[in-house]
C-alpha cells in the first residue's frame, strides 16, 4: 500500500499515457483540464507530468497525471499515480506492449483515443491479471473531431507554449473522460478549455463498452 492510498482514500487518480514530444502537450492538456475543472467545482487537485519519463523523445511512452479529491490532498511527495482510477491512452498503439493497468484500482476505467472498436483492443491490454478490475473500456476518435486535431511541439523540452490549454485532441479526450467517469461536469470543462467544440464532441462521441 502506498502513502496515497493510506492517507488520501477519496482521491481519484487519472493517468494519461501518450507519445513523447509530438503528443506530450495534448496529454498534459487532458490532465490539466480535468484538474482545473475539478478545482472549479471546489475539489482539491494536482496535475503534473511523470518526471521519470523526462526528458522525452519522439514516440517514447510518457505519462501525465491528474488527482482530484473532495478532501485536501495530503500526498505531496509521490510523483507517480500508483493506483489509477482512470487510464487514458492519447495514442492507441500504447495499448500494446505497455503495462497500462499496473496498480489499477478495482472498478477502473480505460479510455483510448482510437478509431478502432473497443472489442478489438481488449486482447492487448496488459497485465492480463488486472483486467477483471476494469469496469469499462471507452473509445473516442479524437483525431477526426473537427477543429480538435493538432500536433504540436509546444511546451516540450523547454520550448515555449503558445497554444492555450485544451486547443487540440487533448480537449476532446478530456470531454470523453468526463462523461465516462463523471469526475467533472461538462460545463466546467467547456468553461476552461480553449477548444470548447472539441470538449463537447468528445463528450458526445465516446463509445463505452461495459466489462465484467
Amino acid at each position, binding site marked *: 500500500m502506498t502513502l496515497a492510498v493510506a492517507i488520501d482514500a477519496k482521491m481519484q487518480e487519472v493517468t494519461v499515457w501518450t507519445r513523447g514530444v509530438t503528443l506530450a502537450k495534448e496529454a498534459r492538456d487532458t490532465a490539466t483540464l480535468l484538474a482545473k475543472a475539478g478545482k472549479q467545482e471546489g475539489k482539491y487537485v494536482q496535475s503534473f507530468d511523470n518526471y521519470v519519463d523526462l526528458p522525452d*523523445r519522439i*514516440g517514447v511512452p510518457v505519462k501525465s497525471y491528474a488527482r482530484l479529491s473532495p478532501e485536501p490532498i495530503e500526498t505531496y511527495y509521490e510523483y507517480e499515480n500508483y493506483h489509477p482510477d482512470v487510464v487514458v491512452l492519447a495514442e492507441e*498503439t500504447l495499448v500494446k506492449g505497455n503495462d497500462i493497468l499496473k496498480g489499477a484500482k478495482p472498478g477502473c476505467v480505460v479510455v483510448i483515443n482510437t478509431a478502432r472498436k473497443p472489442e478489438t483492443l481488449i486482447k492487448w491490454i496488459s497485465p492480463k491479471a488486472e483486467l477483471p478490475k476494469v469496469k469499462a473500456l471507452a473509445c473516442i476518435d479524437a483525431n477526426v473531431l473537427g477543429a480538435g486535431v493538432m500536433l504540436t511541439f509546444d511546451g516540450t523540452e523547454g520550448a515555449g507554449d503558445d497554444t492555450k490549454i485544451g486547443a487540440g485532441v487533448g480537449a476532446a479526450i478530456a470531454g470523453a473522460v468526463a462523461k465516462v467517469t463523471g469526475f467533472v461536469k461538462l460545463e466546467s470543462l467547456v468553461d476552461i478549455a480553449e477548444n470548447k467544440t472539441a470538449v463537447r464532441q468528445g463528450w458526445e462521441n465516446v463509445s463505452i463498452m461495459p466489462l465484467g
Partner: protein
Amino acid sequence: MSKVYKQVPFAAIVPSPTVANEGMVTGNWRYLRPVVDKAECTQCKTCWVFCPDACVNMSADEGVSFNLKYCKGCGVCSNVCPVGAISRVPELDFEE
C-alpha cells in the same frame, strides 16, 4: 606501473553491447511498423546503414528483416530506401 596504465580503458569507452541491451528495449516506442516488399528490394543495404538502432538484419537467403524488439518505428529506413520498398503499417494491424 605501465602495465596497469595500459589496462585502463581509453577515456570513457565501455564495451558495447554486442547483441542487445535488455535495459533499453525500444520496441514499444513504435506505432508504425516497417514492412519490406521483397519483390522491390534490391538488397542495396542503404536501410541497414542508416537505421539508428541497428535493427535491420540482412541475410543472403532471407534478405531484409527487422528486429522488432528494438525497432522504434522512426521511419528512417523507409525514407532512405532508394526504391521505396519499405512501407510503414500501423502496429495494431498486426496481432503480434
